[in-house]
């Protein structure tokens, strides 16, 4: 089996400011993200040969993208993979370029959640087995199940567990305060996080990411052409995805204290990229902290921390901006929110900037390898995308 390693590169990226963008339409955000990416890559819009478009709730086909960008009858593939949609758009573009189907492709993701007229995510699902019988489970509830069980499994009292999670929120809010494109750019204190109202016990307000609008885009080209676009392209080392068969919802063997899909996608990505010791080889990571408990378990599932040891590593500051392995250097979903189709590409935008040394106040020291982890679904029934990129071929 061949690997994607070093076959394609990202030469341009764009990302709008995330937030409750009541003053922007989905078209506005797509245009701003795409044109920032065009400019960054130094290309004209008509050089794009094909596009992969990630979006969950704004309609059908690639028309949603082709119309505002006035694409010239080129192939557009509309991708959907729940909250991992943005990474799926990137994956499609990379595979097409690697296959020789095109040389310059656009991967772009967008979500307009604040036009629904209500708080939270829409509830529409196809009429699958769980759709109308499990109608009361919100996204926070699905992840709170993992927090309850993680606390019980590791012998943490509610207070200890809450404090552990609050440290993650405090770290990400600090990083967000250095991110001009984040929705939340304010630091918070541990006490604020602990005193916040309960959303889904045991998760409080600061354990949850907000519901936001946003868009992000990448220009993907053949690796051998990359330096003709820019001197500092970012090379794709691994693109892996794991789709669970919803076994955790049905099989009592699932312990609800990890996400199996993250373990599998991570291990596969390390093998593809040739990474032996992820805890040391990875310079920085953007992971899917839709809830603080998710970031906690990801640290163990991606082998950044040994199983059961994430609490110690978090307390020791290992994942802070100055730590050995900075995680969510831009503030993560905690500060950017989660416009479903855009998030995976927003993560890659931060890793791309970090590897180019352009992350300004958030810049980590001499990074070489970056990782994004993008999760759809809930613990027990997830789809997880892990991408690894580097600044050397």
């Amino acid at each position, binding site marked *: 089996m061949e690997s994607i390693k070093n076959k394609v590169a990202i030469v341009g990226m764009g990302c709008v400011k995330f937030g409750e963008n009541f003053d922007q339409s989905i078209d506005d955000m797509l245009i701003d993200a795409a044109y920032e990416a065009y400019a960054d890559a130094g290309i004209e819009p008509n050089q794009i040969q094909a596009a992969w478009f990630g979006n969950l709730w704004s309609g059908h086909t690639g028309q949603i993208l082709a119309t505002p960008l006035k694409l010239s009858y080129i192939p557009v593939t509309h991708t959907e993979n729940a909250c991992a949609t943005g990474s799926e758009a990137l994956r499609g573009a990379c595979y097409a370029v690697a296959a020789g189907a095109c040389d310059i492709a656009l991967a772009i993701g967008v979500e307009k959640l604040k036009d629904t007229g209500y708080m939270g995510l829409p509830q529409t699902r196809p009429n699958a087995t769980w759709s109308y*019988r499990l109608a*009361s489970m*919100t996204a926070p509830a699905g992840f709170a*199940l993992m927090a*309850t069980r993680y606390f019980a499994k590791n012998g943490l009292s509610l207070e200890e567990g809450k404090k552990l999670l609050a440290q993650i929120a405090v770290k990400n809010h600090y990083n967000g305060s250095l991110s001009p494109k984040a929705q939340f750019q304010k630091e918070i204190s541990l006490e604020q996080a602990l005193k916040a109202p309960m959303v889904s*016990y045991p998760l409080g307000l600061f354990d949850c990411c907000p519901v936001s609008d946003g868009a992000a885009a990448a220009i993907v080209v053949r690796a051998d052409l990359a330096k003709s676009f820019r001197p500092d392209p970012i090379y794709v080392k691994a693109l892996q995805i794991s789709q669970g*068969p919803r076994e955790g919802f049905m099989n*009592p063997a699932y312990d*609800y204290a990890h996400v199996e899909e993250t373990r599998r996608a991570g291990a596969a990505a390390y093998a593809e990229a040739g990474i032996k010791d992820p805890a040391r080889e990875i310079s920085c990571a953007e992971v899917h902290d839709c809830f603080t408990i998710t970031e906690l378990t990801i640290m163990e599932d991606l082998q950044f921390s040994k199983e059961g040891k994430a609490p110690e590593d978090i307390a020791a500051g290992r994942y802070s901006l100055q730590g050995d392995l900075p995680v969510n250097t831009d503030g993560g979903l905690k500060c950017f929110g989660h416009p479903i189709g855009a998030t995976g590409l927003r993560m890659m935008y931060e890793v791309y900037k970090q590897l180019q040394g352009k992350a300004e106040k958030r810049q980590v020291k001499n990074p070489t390898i970056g990782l994004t982890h993008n999760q759809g679904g809930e613990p027990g029934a997830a789809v997880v995308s892990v991408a690894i990129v580097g600044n050397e071929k």
Partner: protein
Amino acid sequence: MAGIISFGVHVPVHRLSRAVIGQSWESRGLPGERAVASYDEDSLTMAVAAARNCLKHFASKQVGGVYFATTTAPYLEKQNAALIAAALALPEATQTLDFSNSLRAGTSAVSAAINAINSGAAETVLVCVADMRLFAPKSHYEMFSGDGAVAFLLGKEDLIAEVEWFDSYTDEIQDMWRIEGERYIRNAEERFVQDYGYARVMRNAVGKSLKKHGAVGEKFVRFCGNFADPKAIGRIAAKFGFNPETQVDGALNQSVGDTGAAMALMNAALALECAAPGQSIFVAAYGNGCDLMSIRATEKIAGFPFHRRIGDQISQKIMMSSYSKYLIWRDLINVAQTPRPPLVERQPTPPAQWREVKGELVLNGTRCQQCGTPQYPPQRVCMICKTKDKMDLYNFSRVPAKVATFSNDYIMETLDSPVTTTVVDFEGGGRLICDMTDRKLDEIVVGMDVEMTFRKLYTVGGIHNYWWKCTPVRK
């Protein structure tokens, strides 16, 4: 003669103190409390709960019919008994009937069942009676009434009690009524209802029935009535040689309330719970006439495996913190809506519901013939050994279970916040995610014992979405 093989009762766990209702209206409350069907219960789910208690130790008995009686049927068109039979996983040869519109609906169903059994048309019939009548806020009857259900498995053999006789008298009077489109029950002037309705009809019917069978009050251990308060019932009973102090039990009125079509039969169930072999119970159900029954306990009552006695259910309660909660649960008050996704996005569709009647609706999963793993919902390809189409149906509804993990969600739109999302692990294998209902927040822990209960998740587009929830195991 036909009789009772088994019976079970369901008293909703939620109680509203009548004093609290009184305070809400700056008036005097009646003593005691009333049972309030939970926001996710209706007459159909309560009937299923009573039926499951009734069949707990009689699951192997073939049930020839399901007769459902209520004045508050969830569906006005579409048979409710068919849905009850489906929820109980009964076979298609079951005769299903709905009885309604009268406080005698429950005893009418018993009468029809006895006739079917005595004529040989049915071996056994499961009579399920439930009611949750709605009276106008601030009315006397709002305090006086309560919600509840009772189920009797009737047959010819293995009887714990025989029905010695059944009499029925009709009487046309406009005492209590409700027409289509109206939510509250109307009633005529109180003195007219009590004196020229209840007392007149009862004096006549009880007298004639006892005389017809050559019986007097001393023959019985209990007079099981409905409709009126225990004192008024006692005044009638006293005229025929009953001792109101010892033979009229006011426990249900005191702690549950008058449960409409189910009341006289719930009183009969209460009497059966303490009856000795050979003792007789007199049942007199009022409602546009009167149905009268004599039930005599057999020797088998002594060893009967009671499941969830009324006394236990009365004492295991969750007191409602306020009258406004009752108003919200019954949709009697408009409250501010959180701007959350509308439920219409999760409307069940009839084809999907129909496909799942023998699966999800009954809480049937499958068990792999190859590796033996139980799994819910029903699977065709085994999640463990991947064997295709080698599955047996496997019912989870009575399997003991424990909480694997849970969360309490405060943002989901619900009438009983928070939503307790629960991962349930079944003894012997199988896992299910559902809501936990009828729980106190401080009793929920990982590893606690739970059991399954049939509930209404919500109603949207005129469709009641029934499924299962878990609930703490209660005695």
